[in-house]
């Protein structure tokens, strides 16, 4: 099977102290991955990462609210935030930036986020097999012990590539 090249070239670890064992550095990749297209429109920002997790932030914005009468972010942008954080957690765990596809994503909205609050999304790739990557995570608005949402998702490699 022909190898499919990633669609963008992501910088490798360059002087980052974090996740030095991984060939994918979210901190270095974030400016490129998050500055354009859907993520750029939402204004997603890199916050932190570890060996198998990544954390991004979605800034509150007036035109992203879910109800005209309340300044609370719609659920759609939270799915986007968690999808992107999930993908990054998979890449950091794989140690490589490869084309992956979201197979499914479940989001439990355990409470509304606070009015005007940014939402932080943290996803962990807890299991990687040859064909699939399993992810779980939370979204919160300041206190990670009081999440606004829990997520679980599954990713697969595209075009017969192995994870």
């Amino acid at each position, binding site marked *: 099977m022909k190898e499919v090249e990633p*669609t*963008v070239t992501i910088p490798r670890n360059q002087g980052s102290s974090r996740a030095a064992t991984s060939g994918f550095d979210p901190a270095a990749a974030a400016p490129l991955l998050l500055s*354009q*297209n*859907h*993520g*750029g*429109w*939402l204004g997603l920002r890199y916050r932190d990462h570890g060996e198998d997790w990544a954390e991004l932030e979605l800034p509150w914005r*007036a*035109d*992203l*609210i*879910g*109800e*005209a009468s309340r300044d609370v*972010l*719609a*659920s*759609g*942008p939270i*799915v*986007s*935030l968690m*999808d*992107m954080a999930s993908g990054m957690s998979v890449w950091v765990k794989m140690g490589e930036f490869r*084309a992956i*596809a*979201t*197979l*499914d*994503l*479940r*989001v*439990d*909205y355990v409470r*509304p986020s606070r009015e005007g609050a940014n939402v932080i999304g943290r996803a962990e790739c807890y299991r990687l097999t040859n064909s699939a990557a399993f992810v779980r995570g939370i979204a919160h608005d300041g206190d990670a012990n009081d999440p606004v949402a829990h997520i679980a998702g599954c990713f697969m490699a595209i075009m017969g590539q192995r994870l």
Partner: protein
Amino acid sequence: MSDTPDILTPYARSLGIEIADESGDAPTLLLPFSKIAEGRPGVLHGGATSGLLETAGYAALRVALDRLERDHRLKPINVTVQFLSAAKKQPTYALGRVTRAGRRNANIVVEAWQDDRDRPVATAVMNVLMTTPD
């Protein structure tokens, strides 16, 4: 004032979601392909697909409740999105169906497709809490 309930949130309008067809049981929504909805180059972002599916799900419920002359505030409980194939550089449509509307919660299934209605690019199942308006 329009007779149809307000089914496009500020977020939905901002993303570019439009109402394509209101003649059926539930409105069919349309998301034109655009830079702000794009993920990998040439492919719709999964988050944008999910946003369209959720908006279509709420639209189906709003219209169904409106028909029953019920007025509720809707709160999301959960959503599960299945991504079936990459959505390409084309308009994406979505239509929801209320599978059950009880007194306090509703279950909704939604399908999104592009050029072929019989080949959905993504589906969603949603549970929504219906509370009385403040």
